[in-house]
């Protein structure tokens, strides 16, 4: 899949002296983080030019293990910090990693505004349908009826479809993979990195510790199997709509480049340079 084998990749792109990471056994975040690193490798970015930004949450611990310029910000604000970085130095490749809570609960506003501006940031959400870091409260993506410590009688909140939200707000590249569909996930991130504009890739993750346990989803392997059996690629569904029934759609949902924000700003600056 990649030009670098697994261990070489680990050695090259991770801060191995910081490992093992703090995630629980079987946590999907580790697998998803690997897809990010493999995509960076495949696209061939220079490590010094890559900035990885996150908020707060289990998922947001990822940048600490990744050997780039890394920034672990405050809860929900990663995209706003990232916007400042990209504006200040548009040459940097800015990648944002967030959890479902981080990106769509407290951070929902920054998500829709970064998407609206179409600023060149590749945003990857590790969506485990729960607040992992704080011990299993429901998030804006926890399915209706599921259980969580703050939804002891079943969740009555409707869940966001993060990809539709991002696309509706203006993201120019949108896709969804899962921890199980790691190769697809990697491919989507690669294309997101290549898109000059706001790219949004949702990675369905799994939290055996909280979401899994509260909702009797079995161990990490069982949760992987669930993705295997219940996801179907949008391309398949486009041809055979009935195959999409009661399934989770994955794949590339939207890819339609538009003027990028910092390039738009550069046009103004250039006006004064002549």
């Amino acid at each position: 899949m990649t030009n670098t084998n697994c261990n070489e990749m680990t050695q090259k792109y991770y801060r191995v002296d910081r490992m093992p990471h703090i995630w629980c056994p079987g946590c999907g975040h580790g697998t998803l983080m690997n897809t990010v690193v493999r995509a960076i490798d495949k696209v061939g970015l220079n490590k010094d030019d890559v900035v990885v930004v996150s908020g707060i949450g289990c998922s947001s611990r990822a940048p600490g293990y990744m050997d780039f310029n890394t920034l672990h910000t405050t809860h929900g604000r990663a995209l706003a910090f990232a916007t400042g970085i990209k504006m200040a130095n548009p040459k940097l490749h800015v990648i944002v990693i967030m959890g479902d809570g981080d990106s769509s609960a407290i951070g929902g506003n920054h998500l829709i505004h970064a998407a609206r501006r179409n600023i060149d940031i590749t945003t990857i959400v590790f969506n485990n349908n729960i607040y992992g870091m704080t011990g299993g409260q429901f998030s804006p993506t926890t399915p209706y009826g599921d259980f969580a410590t703050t939804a002891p009688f079943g969740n009555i909140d409707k869940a966001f479809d993060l990809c539709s939200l991002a696309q509706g707000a203006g993201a120019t590249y949108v896709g969804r993979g899962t921890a199980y569909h790691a190769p697809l996930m990697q491919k989507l991130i690669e294309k997101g990195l290549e898109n000059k504009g706001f790219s949004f890739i949702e990675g369905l993750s799994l939290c055996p510790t909280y979401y899994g346990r509260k909702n009797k989803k079995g161990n990490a392997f069982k949760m992987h199997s669930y993705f295997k059996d219940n996801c179907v690629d949008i391309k398949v569904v486009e041809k055979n709509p009935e195959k999409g029934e009661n399934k989770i759609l994955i794949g590339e949902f939207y890819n339609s480049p538009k003027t990028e924000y910092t390039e738009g700003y550069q046009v103004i600056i250039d006006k004064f340079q002549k």
Partner: protein
Amino acid sequence: MSNNNGYKLVQGNEACVEGALAAGMRFYAGYPITPSTEIAEISAQKLPQIGGKFIQMEDELASMAAIIGGSLAGLKSMTATSGPGFSLMQENIGYAALAEIPCVIVNVQRGGPSTGMPTSPAQGDIMQAKWGTHGDHPSISLTPNSVQETYEYTIKAFNIAEKYRTPVVLLMDETVGHMREKLKIKDSSEIEVINRKKPTCEPKDYVAYRPDEDMVPQMASFGEGYRYHVTGLTHDETGFPTNNNDVSGKLVQRIVDKVEKNIDDITYYEEYRMEDAEIVIVAFGGVSRAAKSAIDDMREKNIKVGMFRPITIWPFLEKQINDVAQKAKEIYVAEMNLGQYFLEVDRVAGKKCPVKKINKINGELITPNEITYAVTGGAIND
């Protein structure tokens, strides 16, 4: 033909932008709010013309976040706001303090609390400027009292931020922000501009949060080859989170100490007719101009009164206030709030002489007469 000596009529908020540009500000992120909005508007106008960047963010939370990002990417960064926005910025101001990211936050104070009196002057955010975010942290705030000073102290705010890698608050008030008076823009040769210390070592030897002797670590910008980690968790010298209690405690102590122990370097104040003053008025910002006027009036009646005007509001100028108290018979702290700066003056000076308050919170500037009245008990100016 004209004999203006290089002065022109400029609004306080505009002078702030001029100062920022002179200091090297190249990134502004903000969200409009009265009475600070002109700072954003003028920045939007001027920055792209010199290759700088302006962005209007979705709110103040994002604005504060964006300037931290901009600073990390290497540009001197600023935002401006007023009370409600300043409240919203607090979480990320704490982040900048802990992660040691230089940046300047301008708060043009208006009447509070809450939406309060949006177009009226006040000095109600004095204590908030020090204590607004959670946890112990360093705080630096400067309070100009004229258009010229707004220009000068905006430059100093950037210099201090860069030198000590910490957020610096320029605490203006509506009076100063919106008034127009003369400003002399200085030649760049006359301006001292300080830039953050860059790493002197190779990337492989870079320990991002290892302080030099001045307690301040060297700062690489993202993209310069020094790949390091920045976090709002307590961290060790490498910048990575630590669970070690003592390392955590020492980090917080250091970021506070690097400011408190260098206080002499960031001490700015003015003394007015203090030589033989027995009564001392402590005032700052817009109110200090009323105080000066009142002092002139009272001096005409042979009342020995002078003013100590802190320009550096935080850290508190304990030494100077102590000296003042040593000589004074009585101190009045005049402010457009219910007595905030008073508390610290009373703590330090109150051990030596009586400290009294002159307060006003109705959205109007304290007048010279009000000060005179308070000091003389209405003996003159009836």
